[in-house]
């Protein structure tokens, strides 16, 4: 069984992962077949499903929090790169 791909990203948005960033994450995650999750390492929170905006809000991610992104599936590599782009692109 293949291990999931993971990467950590520090939240740089001044308002954290706010609603619009959350929306972008959800739409990007839904473009891929891979199962994609995120954990807020700063809050030691459990993993959430990135395909759900409601789950993303549960991250309560503020500026400076460290997020562990995880992706598993045939297009996991592309998914994790695209999700990282959303978090690293201020909007």
């Amino acid at each position, binding site marked *: 069984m293949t291990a999931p791909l993971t990467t950590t990203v520090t939240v740089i948005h001044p308002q954290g992962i706010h*609603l619009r960033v959350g*929306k972008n994450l959800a739409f990007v995650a839904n473009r891929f077949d891979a199962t994609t999750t995120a954990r807020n390492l700063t809050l030691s929170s459990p993993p959430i499903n990135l395909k759900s*905006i*409601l789950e993303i*809000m549960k991250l309560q991610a503020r500026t400076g929090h460290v997020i562990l992104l995880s992706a598993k599936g045939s297009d996991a590599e592309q998914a994790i790169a695209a999700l990282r782009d959303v978090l690293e692109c201020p909007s």
Partner: protein
Amino acid sequence: MISLILVSHCRDIAQGVLQLAVEMTQTPVSIGAVGGIPDGEGGYRIGTDALSIRDAIEANWNSDGVLLLVDLGSAVLSAETAIEFLPEEMQSVCLISNAPLVEGAVIAALEASLQHSLQDVNRAAEAVRCLDKVTR
């Protein structure tokens, strides 16, 4: 793709939630907003009107389904009455959500935009009732 109908006692609330919901879509979702009752002087007073809700359902009709997100009290009754005014084949794909209006509309707009089914969109919207907004 399903449509959404937002119902509030207050026209400004309905219009504001509409603005927020549209912001959450990626592909266009048909969303109607109904709030208040015409006061006869060009403005609106607080209240809900079943006929206006029915008109909004018809104007935003989609046979995939119509999810109604409402605030409280007579908004629920008026939404139920509005659905009863519709032909039976339309009634069967209209659903009043138990989700709170604002949060439900945000979630539902995104989920509808992802072309999820009526039941799936409603399930996602209603799940917001269990969301803690702050950690204590």
